[in-house]
C-alpha cells in the first residue's frame, strides 16, 4: 500500500466534521484507485476512533462528535454501493432504541452514529420502544445485536424484559443485548443478564465488536 499519509486529508475532514470535504476526498481517493473497503477500514474507521478518543478526553463535546459521525456517514454513502457483493458491506446489523417510557435520545443517537461509523448497519427504533419491539425487529431484520439505552431509573428495569424476550424467542447466544445510558452500569447489566455494557459511545463500539466475536464463536 502507499504511504501512511494517504488517508490524512480524509481523516482530518472527518474529525473536523466537514461533510463536503469528506465527499470530495472520497471521490478523489476512488479515482486515484483506492479500494472501497480500504477507504472504510483504513481511512474512515480510524478517524472515528480518534473522534471517540477526543470525546473521552473532554476535547470534543456531543455536537462535535455528532457532526463528525455525520460527515463520515456521507462518505460511507458514496463508498458502500461500490463494494462488491462478496465483500462484507457491514459488520452486522444492530437494532437500537431507548427503552419504553423514556424519551432521552442524545446518547442513543451518538452510540448509533459511532456504530455506523465503525461499520455496523443501525436500525434505529427511536425512543419509548416496547421491549418486544426490539426483539421482533431483530428477528425480522436478522440483526446480531440489540442496543438499549435508558436514562431514567424508573424505567431502566424494563431493559430486563428485552433480555427475557430474546430468551423466549430462542435467540439467546445468537442475538447479543448491549445496554447503556447514564444510570446503567456493569453490575446492573450483569444482574439483568445483558451481554454487554458500555459507558460511552466509543466504548460501545469496542464492546459491540467483542460481543460480535463471541456470538460468531458460539
Amino acid at each position: 500500500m502507499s504511504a501512511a499519509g494517504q488517508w490524512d486529508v480524509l481523516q482530518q475532514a472527518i474529525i473536523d466534521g466537514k461533510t463536503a470535504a469528506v465527499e470530495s476526498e472520497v471521490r478523489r481517493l476512488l479515482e486515484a484507485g483506492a479500494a472501497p473497503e480500504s477507504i472504510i477500514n483504513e481511512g474512515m474507521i480510524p478517524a472515528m476512533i480518534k473522534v471517540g478518543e477526543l470525546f473521552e478526553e473532554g476535547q470534543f463535546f456531543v455536537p462535535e462528535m455528532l457532526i463528525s459521525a455525520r460527515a463520515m456517514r456521507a462518505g460511507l454513502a458514496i463508498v458502500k454501493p461500490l463494494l462488491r457483493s462478496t465483500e462484507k458491506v457491514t459488520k452486522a446489523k444492530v437494532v437500537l432504541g431507548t427503552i419504553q417510557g423514556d424519551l432521552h435520545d442524545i446518547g442513543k443517537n451518538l452510540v448509533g452514529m459511532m456504530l455506523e461509523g465503525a461499520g455496523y448497519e443501525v436500525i434505529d427504533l427511536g425512543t419509548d420502544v416496547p421491549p418486544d419491539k426490539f426483539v421482533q425487529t431483530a428477528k425480522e431484520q436478522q440483526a446480531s445485536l440489540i442496543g438499549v439505552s435508558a436514562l431514567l431509573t424508573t424505567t431502566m428495569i424494563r431493559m430486563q424484559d428485552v433480555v427475557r424476550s430474546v430468551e423466549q424467542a430462542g435467540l439467546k447466544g445468537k442475538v447479543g443485548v448491549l445496554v447503556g445510558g447514564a444510570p446503567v452500569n456493569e453490575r446492573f447489566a450483569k444482574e439483568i443478564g445483558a451481554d454487554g455494557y458500555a459507558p460511552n459511545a466509543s466504548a460501545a463500539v469496542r464492546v459491540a465488536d467483542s460481543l460480535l466475536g463471541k456470538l460468531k464463536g458460539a
Partner: protein
Amino acid sequence: MRLDQLAVAAYRDGRRMVAPLLGYPGVQLTGSTIRQNTFNSELHARSLQALAERFRPDLLFFMMNLSLEAGALGLPVRYPLQESASVEEHPVRRASDLEQFRQIDPLADALIQAHIDTMRRMKDLLPAGILRGGYVVGPFTLAGLLMGATSLALATVEQPELVTEVVEFARGVVEAYGRELVKAGAQVIAILEPTATFLSPAAFRKFAGRADRQVIQALQEESSRKAATAGEEVMTILHICGDAGHLVEAMAETGAQGLSLDSDVDLAAAARRVPADVVLVGNIDPVAVMGAGDQEAVAAAVEHLLEAMDPYPNFILSTGCDLPWNTPLANVETFMRAGRGWRRQAGHDK
C-alpha cells in the same frame, strides 16, 4: 436581599440553609398524583403547604415541569399519572417554522395560569420564613424541545444562526412566564437548563448563557418594578442536572445568584471556581441516595457533603435534581435533620 447574603448570614449564625428540591413527594401528603397537581393549583398549593409544614425547608419550589412552556406553545405533551410530563414532538426545522408559534400567547395557556395561581396560593399557604420558589425552563432547553435535542446539538455547529433565533424566541416565552411568576409572588426563580450539559463552555456562553443572563435580568427588572412597594428583589438560580462540571465558570457568568448542580459535580471544587457571591446549591443524589438509599445512607451523604463544604459560606444544602415522587419521607426527614444539625466549626471561616 440576594441569595448569597442569605446564605452567608445563615453561615455566620452557624447554620446552613437547607432546601431539597421537594415538589413531587408532596403527592404523598395529599394522597394525589403528579397529574392532578399539575392541573389543579389549589391541590398543588396544598401539597406544597403540607411539605412546608412537615419539613420546614428554607426554600420550597413548586413541582418541576420541563414541558410546561412547550405545552403552552401547543407542542404535544404527555401527562402520565405519576411521572413527569414529556414533550412528544419537536417540529421546528427552520426559522420560518417559528412563525406559527409567534401567533400564540403562552400566557393564555391553562396550565401556565395554573402554575401562576399556585404561586399566588403559596403566598397565603406557606408558613412565614419559607421562601417561595418557581421554575422556568431555560431558553436553550426550550429550544431543544422545539427542535429536538439532537438536531439542536448538530445545529449549534452547522446552523448557529438558527439556534440563536430559536433560543431568542424561546427566551421571549420564558421571560413572559417568569415575569408573571414574579408578579404572583415568587421570591426565587430557578432556570432549568439541563439540555445545555452537552455543550462545551464556549458553546454554552454563546447559545445558552447569554439568553439565561437576559432572562435573569428581565426577572430582576420585573421585581425591582415591584420592589418599590414590597421591598424584595427576586433571587435567581441556574439549574443544570447531569454532569455540568465543565460549565461552572460559564454558568456563574450569567449573573445567577445561585448555581444548582447535580450529584455528578464536585461541589467543593466548584466552590473554588466561582466568585464568593455565587451560591452553590446541591447536590445529594436524588435517585440513588434519596430515592433508593436508606436513612443511614442519606445521613452519611449529607454529613459528608456538609463537611466538604465547611469552608464555604456560599452554599445551600439541596439535592442534585428534583426528588422522585415516591422518595421515602423518612429520607427527607433525615436529610433535613442532618442539614439542621450542622454547626459551623470555629476557625473555618475565610
